[in-house]
């Protein structure tokens, strides 16, 4: 799935050619991140400090994990809006299980239960979307509202504390989160690139009819993407809950648009058939660094939100431009 070198550019003037090459490059977003840091570092004390980098990493890793699952769903041409509600629900269910105030089951059991619940909720989404042939947008919107309400209801809107030390350790050590994230990212990228399932996933996103006629089990492939998405959300929930030492029914509520925005900024197409884990990483990195830098510049949260919205819109324009360039040169 590499970006193709446009043919027409060879006839164009060098500058145009350079510009087309730049827009089409898959490292464009990564380059922009570096540029952003280089531009803002002189005015932003503490942007490039160890403490801040750790801070960025702590925020970025769970976001990236959720975005990995969302990337798979978006490659099929779908969308998963329910991920943040899955984070919240798995957080409170897990916390209720393992908290000293709750049933105090062993941490491992709680962890397995959280991940299984996440995957199960993804399966429900995927099942409804593929079996009833409903649009992913409306199904996951409904499950977002349902699960979010459900999480608040079972906790009576209270946070759950007194989580066991063995669970909290997962949040204290950045290396654990880092190791987990890297392993997951590499595994998923390898699956996408080197397995039958990966090829099928792209084919389903590019042309579901052609894929079906070619013998691709379109429904099963789509279903699996939602299961992975739910699983990834649950994994992110483990990391977030452990770091905040809380089971919270509103956990992750504000990061939904960051997740989808970052995936689009990275270059995964909302229309399906296109996407890479590395791209999503670049997108998450860019949005996180932007958010962090603007925070350090003491901009208000509203200004930051406006800036992020602008960037996401620009990314969508960029995606459309790439698409058009690709067709023109066809």
């Amino acid at each position, binding site marked *: 799935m590499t970006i193709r070198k446009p043919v027409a550019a060879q006839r164009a003037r060098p500058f145009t050619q350079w510009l087309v090459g730049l827009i089409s490059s898959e490292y464009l977003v990564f380059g922009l991140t570096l540029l952003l840091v280089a531009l803002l570092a002189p005015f932003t004390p503490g942007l490039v400090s160890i403490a801040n980098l750790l801070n960025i990493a702590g925020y970025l890793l769970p976001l990236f994990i959720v975005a990995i699952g969302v990337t798979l769903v978006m490659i099929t041409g779908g969308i998963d809006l329910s991920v943040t509600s899955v984070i919240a629900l798995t957080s409170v269910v897990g916390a209720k299980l393992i908290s000293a105030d709750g049933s105090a089951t062993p941490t491992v059991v709680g962890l397995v239960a959280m991940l299984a619940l996440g995957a199960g909720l993804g399966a429900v989404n995927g099942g409804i979307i593929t079996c009833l042939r409903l649009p992913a947008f409306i199904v996951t919107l409904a499950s977002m509202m349902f699960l979010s309400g459900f999480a608040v209801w079972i906790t009576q809107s209270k946070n759950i504390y007194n989580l066991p030390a063995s669970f909290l350790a997962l949040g204290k050590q950045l290396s654990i989160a880092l190791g987990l994230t890297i392993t997951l990212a590499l595994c998923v990228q390898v699956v996408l690139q080197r397995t039958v399932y990966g090829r099928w996933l792209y*084919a389903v996103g590019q042309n579901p009819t052609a894929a079906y006629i070619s013998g*691709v089990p379109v429904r099963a492939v789509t279903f699996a993407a939602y299961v992975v998405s739910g699983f990834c959300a649950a994994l992110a929930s483990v990391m977030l809950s452990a770091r905040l030492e809380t089971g919270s029914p509103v956990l992750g509520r504000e990061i939904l648009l960051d997740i989808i925005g970052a995936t689009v900024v990275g270059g995964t197409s909302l229309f399906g058939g296109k996407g890479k884990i590395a791209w999503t990483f670049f997108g998450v990195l860019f949005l996180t660094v932007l958010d962090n830098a603007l925070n350090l510049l003491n901009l208000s949260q509203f200004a930051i939100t406006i800036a992020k919205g602008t960037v996401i819109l620009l990314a969508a324009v960029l995606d459309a431009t790439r698409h058009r360039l690709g067709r023109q040169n066809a």
Partner: protein
Amino acid sequence: MSTPLLEFDAVEKSFFGVKVLKGVSFNIPEGGMVGLVGENGAGKSTLMNILGGNLQPSAGSLRFGGESYAPQNSGDAARQGIAFIHQELNLFPNLSIAENIFLTCFPRMGAIPLIDRTEVSRRAAKLLRDVGLGLSPERLVETLSTGQRQLVEIAKALSIETRLIIFDEPTTSLSERETLQLFALIARLRSRGLAMIYISHTLADVFRLCDDLVALRDGEVVGCGPAKSFTSASLVALMVGRTMTQLFPDRRSSTPPREAVFEVHKVRRIDVPNYVSFCLHQGEVLGLSGLMGAGRSELARVLFGLDPRESGTILLDGEVIDSLSPRDLIGRGVAFLTENRRSEGLCLDASIAENLTLATLAEHAQNPLRWLSAKSLQTAVSNIRQAVGLDSKTGDGQCVRSLSGGNQQKIVLGKWLLLKPRVLILDEPTRGIDVGAKYEIYRLIQELADSGAGVLVISSEMEELMGICDRILVMRSAAIVDELGRAEFDRERILHGAFGTEIAR
């Protein structure tokens, strides 16, 4: 002849460097009726797309009503008073007849930007009377038959000041009675002084209706003049050209009947009264002929499990297949090349290699993790590229969208050949591709049959079926009405079966 209404002057058009129109020049006189004939791919559609503003000519010019005419879009053509009645009608089934007619120019209440409902009904009713359609303008289009819809299209064309109407294969999906009604309407419109271009494969109709004829072949005008100066035979000879005999690879002399590989027994699709039964043998190329709407593609879709079947059995190598789904059938070596290669055959934004291997990925992942072997994939891709004769200039990673229709079709075919199918069903395998690529496709079909597979070919081009098949079945109204062995191939007999009537000569 007075000043011409429309003049084509040395119009040329190229796609991907292939010239599909090579300097086409002819005139349509004011109030004249010109028949445009030619095989599929002769350039008729391209020419009409240029006239309608959907395509721009690479060279040459058009003049309409004595003035230079260079439409940039379909709106330009409509403003000039040029209307198209297409094979596939462009109506909105969810709207009423009146709404469809006035969609682009609703009558307003004077200066107020509101639609004048009474005026709409009054004018619609008058237009419907003009075209002889005795229905309420409030009827929804989805409740109309194809013939009635066509009349609505014509009424729509008459609602604006139309000076030229183009009929593109108007009779293919009409009943005999509807056809006669249409011809009567055409005669009435002519008496009003409207000019018309009539495109059809039914030569008898063309002779019956038109004053002048223009024959196209491979993007060139090969015959042009009064209809009286042609005969059916001379026109066919012009359209087909001398190269006809070289269009098809030699079919080996008839082989003794072999074992049945694919048997269809009394299969019926939902909502259709007729059964279909036939048998496809090993090494046989079996053709399925018939008019558009005869149910050929629909039958193929049922056989491949894309549409539900009401009843009937299907046997592969003598074994009954219960569950019909593309996945199961592919697993058993049945493949289906659909008629819409862009929407159903290819992932246009994926690469050549990805498209070629899509149906056979599992073969390259013979391990528990379903890990793909890059080497095995690469070998398969380069072998099949060579086999289908795909241009070596294009890389394996090139996106399929950028290829010509012929190369795209070779990729879809290559995808299925990699499966080494026992049975291959092809629906219009050469639609919209150039002559050279056609020959390659025919060659591949022959080779596959020679290797022992059964091939079922659906085609609207009779010459194509007669050129490559061992046997031809003729379909009409979702039933098989005739069967011809290679020795009995006869254009007239096939048409006779397809129309269900004696063809007027």
